[in-house]
């Protein structure tokens, strides 16, 4: 092979450049910019489920709520954590405590670059007033 050293060096540079976004993200894993979520302003200290569960599974829970309310006409949710009952409503129950949608929902969604379209239809009570 002619010019083996140049080719290998060039390939190495190419691989490093092509995978640079991966390196960049790996090195910045513990980003100092991770959002901090505000606590509920109405004094409530208890969510429908445990905080850890909600952090990872709130989207699945909301999907389940959506289907049970709209399709099965069941509107009350019994918490697996506390056994308390809640009305399954995004605008009333969730935003009833987490009133600041831009600081609570949007902060994380923007950070993790997801764009749920809940708010295309569902009303943010604070904005409606």
């Amino acid at each position, binding site marked *: 092979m002619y010019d083996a050293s140049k080719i290998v060096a060039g390939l190495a540079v190419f691989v490093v450049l092509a995978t640079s976004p991966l390196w960049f993200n790996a090195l910045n894993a513990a980003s100092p910019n991770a959002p901090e979520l505000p606590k509920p302003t109405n004094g409530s200290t208890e969510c429908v489920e445990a905080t850890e569960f909600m952090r990872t599974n709130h989207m699945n829970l909301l999907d389940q709520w959506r289907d049970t309310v709209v399709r099965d006409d069941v509107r009350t949710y019994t918490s697996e954590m506390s056994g308390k009952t809640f009305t399954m409503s995004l605008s009333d129950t969730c935003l009833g405590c987490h009133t600041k949608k831009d600081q609570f929902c949007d902060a994380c969604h923007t950070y993790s670059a997801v764009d749920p379209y809940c708010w295309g239809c569902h009303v943010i009570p604070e904005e409606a*007033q």
Partner: protein
Amino acid sequence: MKNSRRGFLKFAGLSAVGVAGSAAVATRTRASQEHEPPATEGKRLALVVDLRKFSRDDALLDKITDACHQTHNVPDFSDDPKNEVKWIWTEDFETAFLSQEFHYIREDLKGKPTLLLCNHCDNPPCTRVCPTQATWKRASDGVVMMDWHRCIGCRYCVVACPYGSRSFNWKDPRKAPNLAEIDSTYPTRMRGVVEKCTFCDERLARGEQPACVEVCENDEMVFGDLNDPESKVRQVLAEHLAIRRKPGLGTQPEVYYIVEDPRTLQEFAPAAEVFGEEGGHA
């Protein structure tokens, strides 16, 4: 027998036709069973509109429409009929009951504004054509429901509904001038979604009457369960002659209209006796 290419191809072709055919027959059979009207167990909610109790320029008509449209954040694009979104609206009596071919009718009914809304048919054509099951007939009470999360805006249901009860959101509903103030207890819809009356399923869940019925103070509209012989709708229907829209289509609408007035009832009374005597001779 020696295997030839010709023989193999024949066999393969025939097998493929056989498999496809039996699968198609199976699907057809299943599909036709699903299209049977649902069993009338549970409730069968229906609405009776008493046309006798509405005057021609009744302020109640607007009150009813506003109550419904405000409760459900229905956008007002009425300046352009193409964009119009309506859950409950009025039409001339003859237009509303076109298929009955009313000619030379009573003066008081001619051009009389008649309230129209989703008929919540027993045999709804709209739910059959929906490719995503975003609209379906609720088995527990017969309400033709909408799941706006699932609607993909194909508008098959708009075409299928013979009553014009379904509206498509051509424009972003939030941009409608009347939705500057939104009722926060009910969502809006998105652009590209079909919407219609749901008999106020969210109010029914709280044990309330539909919004249109609630503003009627003198039973101009009556709502209830047809499967309950003691219900008000059944009593009203038993006492009066009520008609439905486009009965010939077999959709079995669950919105009834009372059209006779007390005067005609009295006029009919002696005639009925004569008819009874003649029937006795025959």
